[in-house]
């Protein structure tokens, strides 16, 4: 406990407030991207439709399921430690990490296929024809958004790993599990970002 706090609970509440504020910042960050995305979508509806048709709906959907499950597993871990079961928490952490890694691997496969299909904005962009320009802009957003999201995932996996390590050290108990809660909040947020991106990337053309 830092000396500016009067109790552990006081510190825990402050940490949660801090994370909420950080997430407010994140919402504006991704919000700006989504705003520009939607704006450009209105400017080039045909290009965006064309591009969405080439997005990998199958991998995208599997990944959505994977990510939702990972949020579930982490929350299960949080509930476990609140009941005082650190072992369960560690298991939940590794399940979460596993799912996160699966997400990233699938994402990697998807990127690999995209690049292989020539879906890289620039001179050699494979979707030619009149709507090529709009489709390229779509793919800029696609890469910016998914890379940023993946970065958040990597940071998240690091945080969950740290939670598992601290749980193993016996830091958490029924009485005190603030970091678990804070990381859980972050992980759920990364999930929510994906749930915003998913329809923009994969479903807009349907």
């Amino acid at each position: 406990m830092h000396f500016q706090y009067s109790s552990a609970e006081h510190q825990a509440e402050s940490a949660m407030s801090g994370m909420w504020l950080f997430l407010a910042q994140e919402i504006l960050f991704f919000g700006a991207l989504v705003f520009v995305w939607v704006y450009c979508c209105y400017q080039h509806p045909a290009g965006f439709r064309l591009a969405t048709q080439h997005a990998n709906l199958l991998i995208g959907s599997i990944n959505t399921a994977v990510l939702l499950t990972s949020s579930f597993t982490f929350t299960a871990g949080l509930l476990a430690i609140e009941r005082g079961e650190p072992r369960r928490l560690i298991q939940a952490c590794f399940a979460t990490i596993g799912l996160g890694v699966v997400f990233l691997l699938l994402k990697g496969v998807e990127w690999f296929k995209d690049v292989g299909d020539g879906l890289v904005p620039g001179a050699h962009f494979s979707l030619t024809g009149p709507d090529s320009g709009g489709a390229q802009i779509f793919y800029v957003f696609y890469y910016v958004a998914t890379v940023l999201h993946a970065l958040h995932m990597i940071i998240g996996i690091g945080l969950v790993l740290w939670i598992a390590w601290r749980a193993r050290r016996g830091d958490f108990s029924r009485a005190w599990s603030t970091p678990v809660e804070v990381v859980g909040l972050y992980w759920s947020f990364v999930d929510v970002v994906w749930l915003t991106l998913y329809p923009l990337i994969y479903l807009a053309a349907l």
Partner: protein
Amino acid sequence: MSVTVDTPRVSYLTEENTIGSWLLTTDHKRIALLYFASITGFFFLGGIAAALMRINLLTPTGAIVSHEMYNRLFTMHGVVMVWFFLVPAIPVTLGNFIVPLMLGARDLAFPKLNLVSWYLFMTGGLFATYSLFAGGLDTGWTFYTPLSTDYTKGHVVAVAIGIFISGFSSIATGVNFIVSIHRLRAPGMGWYRMPLMLWSLYATSVIYVLATPVLAMTLILLGFETVFHVGIFDQRLGGDPLLFQHLFWFYSHPAVYIMILPGFGVMSEVLTTFSQKGIFGYKFIAWSSVAIAVISFFVWGHHMFVAGTSVYSAITFSLLSFMVSVPSAIKVFNWLGTLHKGYIKFDAPMLYALGFLGLFTIGGLTGLFVAALGADVHLTQTYFVVAHFHYIMVGGMVSAFFAGLHYWWPKITGRLYPEMWARAAAFLIFFGFNLTFFPQFILGYLGMPRRYAAYPPEFQVLNVLSSAGSTILAVAYLMPVFYLGYSLRHGARSPSNPWHATGLEWKTQSPPRTENFPIIPIVTEPPYNYPRPEDRTRAA
């Protein structure tokens, strides 16, 4: 002050003095000093660029540098002054130092995050300034597309990365302040018992947290556009150059209030202390800060009245811009009400504060000139605008910074600064500032465009006047470096409350211990509860 001062033997300054203890400190007071050193460096870097520009403008054809060099200079001046001085200046130095003390807390809510924010700031700052030196950038601090993305050879991406990184330091500071103000107020300190400095820093932090990420995303897209030429902002590929301006000003107009709101906070503290009188209209000043923070998000379009947006948007943004100036006017009136029937002393902080009041009022009133649509068409993008925002940013914000710096100097260092020198500097700054920037209002009205490395000869006299003023201003800004530096070693020891002020920060020793307060104070009275001398004499 003939009171014998029992010098505190132990303070946050004496605790441990290895390099590591400073560079890895989590003490908000030490981090404030780290920030202070950085900010001073950036201020003089930006100042040197400004001085070179003013020298160049002594002659119509440009006295010393080429057009290209001039463009790089004003870009460097803008980027450094905006992002590495004005935006962070008061919050990260004075704010960092004073927020926990005012709250009656031992530190900010997240001390490690505070340290991280300094490292982010330095990384971003050094990266950006290195790029500005090494490659140069000539787009102006506004990075308008498509100039920045397709037509400049300057290091747009590198500078953008620097700003991007340091943006996260702003966010970290904002999160830290908001949580601290919510969670760490001393027992008994309700919201309306907080000093107004905290209200204004709270409003500032809200903008930090909500506006900076939009800039971050804008810079990412700008970088992509610059490197890959994808067409988000490029009309040749069906993009929209104005989209960039909307996104940019969505951050950068609130950023103007990031710069000035903390100055408002300093004003409320200094004016009450040196009038020995309670603040006039506490709630109005407090809520006007919040109102400014909120409305500031809806006025960005007033930078684009002649840019090609629709008439409807211009009319809406003009109305909103008038609205956002109402809370500022309320503040000025309330500060005047604070002086009324006070016991006014003219120590240096008060001189700076009165300077602020005058200069900010001029800056605010000229803001109405450019908010009024018909007038803006003529004045925008001329020196009138340059003069206007320098009255706010330099006349206002830098004066407030100096007011606060002198006011809290005894608390920060435990030493008193040389009063006569400080007063002389305050007068000199006021005079030099007006001589530098007042002629620019006239230049602007006459039509001289901003960002011109050369100009028609009829503008020379006013430009020479302005340059002459800037010489005085430069000397005046250097003076505090010397006399404050001198006081660090040779200044008289300060008692814990040299100004007979009321805030909690004055109830602990100068300089404070690392934990600020040996016992957490309990607040039992409203802020600025200055006793009336009449009551004192009556009681005696």
